[in-house]
């Protein structure tokens, strides 16, 4: 119980810090960013009253004290008001985020699970086969990890969508066939079809990390006495590999998996932009390009919140499966 309480405190403070950071960041910047921004925006056309309002809200209303603004900010947050988007005026920020969230969670979430499964399986195998030719293949996975993932996306588009028109170039579904998301088999099929290349991108760029982490832990675990004991008892190799070595070697990877799930929403911002995938990442970039600060802050807040929640759940589960974590507070 002490473990849970302690973790709760840490997460509460983190939440407070993240929200405050979101509030203070634009106000802490040197110079007078508000007027620079207004100048920049008026160069591109007229500045609407809504935009001015959004800028005042972001950089602070010179008439109110900082403390008062901070209190107002919290009050708005608690009433679920993240402001109004400028680029999609007058849609509320919460509505925009709500419609983008399922896309990111669906695509990146499923791809992360696939990548984790493949990586752990391959890592278990390469760790088991230590000291063979497999050892020389393992370092090449670092090349996969070092590839900029959005570049992988570009190369995939070039080969599979431009050179050979096997897959669509952009989007989350066929916008010419459907006016918007609907519940029909055709639509689901279109979504899956559009998700293949983005999913492959995610798997390619993240599978190496899982593989390597699992392999190294597997090699370390295979040196433990209980594995030798199991071998001496004459257990089946398969049993030693799965129930003795892999089960213990997997612990750190499970923690990593929880964290990775947290980054599902905000981890592949650039990839979503390359594919114009209608998720949170693309929403954020749209906000940045349009100087839509209310939307940007809202998205950032949601991304941070997801990470927090995922990490908290991981912590709790990890405390259950690994008693050592509970002891080490």
């Amino acid at each position, binding site marked *: 119980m002490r473990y849970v309480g302690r973790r709760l405190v840490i997460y509460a403070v*983190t939440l407070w810090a993240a929200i405050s*950071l979101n509030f203070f960041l634009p106000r802490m910047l040197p110079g007078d960013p508000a007027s620079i921004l207004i100048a920049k925006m008026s160069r591109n056309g007229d500045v609407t009253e809504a935009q001015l309002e959004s800028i005042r809200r972001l950089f602070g209303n010179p008439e109110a004290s900082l403390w008062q603004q901070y209190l107002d900010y919290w009050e708005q947050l608690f009433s679920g008001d993240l402001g109004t988007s400028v680029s999609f005026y007058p849609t509320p920020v919460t509505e925009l985020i709500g419609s983008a969230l399922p896309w990111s969670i669906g695509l990146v979430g499923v791809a992360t699970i696939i990548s984790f499964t493949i990586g752990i399986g391959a890592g278990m195998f390469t760790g088991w086969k230590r*000291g063979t030719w497999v050892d020389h293949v393992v370092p090449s996975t670092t090349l996969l990890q070092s590839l900029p993932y959005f570049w992988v996306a570009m190369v995939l588009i070039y080969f599979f969508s431009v050179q050979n028109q096997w897959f669509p170039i952009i989007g989350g579904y066929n916008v010419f066939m459907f006016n918007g998301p609907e519940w029909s088999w055709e639509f689901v099929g279109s979504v899956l079809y559009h998700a293949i290349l983005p999913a492959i991108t995610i798997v390619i760029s993240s599978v190496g990390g899982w593989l390597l982490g699992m392999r190294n832990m597997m090699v370390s675990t295979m040196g433990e006495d209980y594995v030798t004991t199991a071998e001496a008892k004459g257990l089946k190799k398969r049993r030693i590999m799965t129930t003795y070595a892999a089960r213990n070697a997997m612990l750190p990877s499970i923690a990593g998996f929880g964290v990775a799930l947290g980054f599902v929403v905000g981890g592949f911002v650039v990839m979503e932009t390359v594919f114009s995938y209608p998720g949170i990442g693309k929403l954020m970039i749209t906000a940045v390009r349009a100087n839509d600060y209310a939307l940007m802050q809202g998205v950032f807040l949601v991304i941070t919140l997801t990470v927090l929640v995922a990490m908290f759940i991981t912590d709790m589960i990890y405390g259950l499966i690994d008693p050592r974590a509970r002891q080490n507070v």
Partner: protein
Amino acid sequence: MSNPATEAPTQDVEPVQTHKVTKPKRHVNGKFVIGAVMLSLIILFAILGPMITQFDPRDSDNPVLIPPDATHWLGTTSLGYDMFSQLATGARTSLMVGVVAGLIAVVLSIMFGVVAGYVGGVTDEVLTLIIGVMLVIPGLPLTIVISSLVPGRSGLLVAVILGITGWAGAAVVLRSQAQSLRNRDYVSASRIAGENPFRVIGVEILPNLLPLLTGQFLFGVIFAILGEAGLSYLGLGPTGSISWGTILNEAQAGGALTRGAWWWFVPPGLMVALVGCSLALINFAIDEVINPKLRSAPLEARRLRKAKKERRAEKKAAKVELKKEAAS
């Protein structure tokens, strides 16, 4: 009395060896060599590349979008820029951003992680909380937010932003290492001897963390180069300079994908990957030094397999022998 004439011969006498001293076999790590050679070639490219080429990276007088040939080694872009020249100039920016951000991240992770682990108590609680906050706040979205709020960005500023947002993971590892080092006898000894904490950290603890720190620095550099490429691709990187990320940004905007200009977008991404790969290989080698199990376990497994094979061969030979005897 010393006399050079009498002393000289004694030097010729070989010292009597009581036991044979075998030099420890120096193990040259193949991964390290490959990684180091790759890295040096890339650095050389960044230094010499802009000098070799006769084209200015911003010279648009060249033919537009031509594939690689004898004059334009890597072809040209849709604005007529020479790609080789762009790539070489971009290498300087990207590597500079990576190294500076990596250094900042390492220094910050030492400041937070090592100090938290060594000092303990309330300081530890506070610093760990800060580390926890930085760990949870997602790095790339935060850099995007910061970059979008700052209008004119130099390469140095982008490096600082990436460094400030990317140190928390390393700090967690350093903290636990420092915690375990704190209780070692030699650290306790110097603490009891009254050394001040800065000296204990600097002289007793940091040298022991050096391999780990090197690994984290390299990791920080990879992270920053990838981060810079991502930011620049989004148009949020250093303003007005050429980096691998800005080339990718221009390639996307210039329709390199649909116009089939592979020489425009393939090289920058490959360069990023090669830098990452070379640093990761060096990191691998360091890992094997820090964690002997990674090195010894495969060797042991190999030895075991060899012994089994020999044993099997012996058994087989014995069987054949038996059969021969039975036959005769």
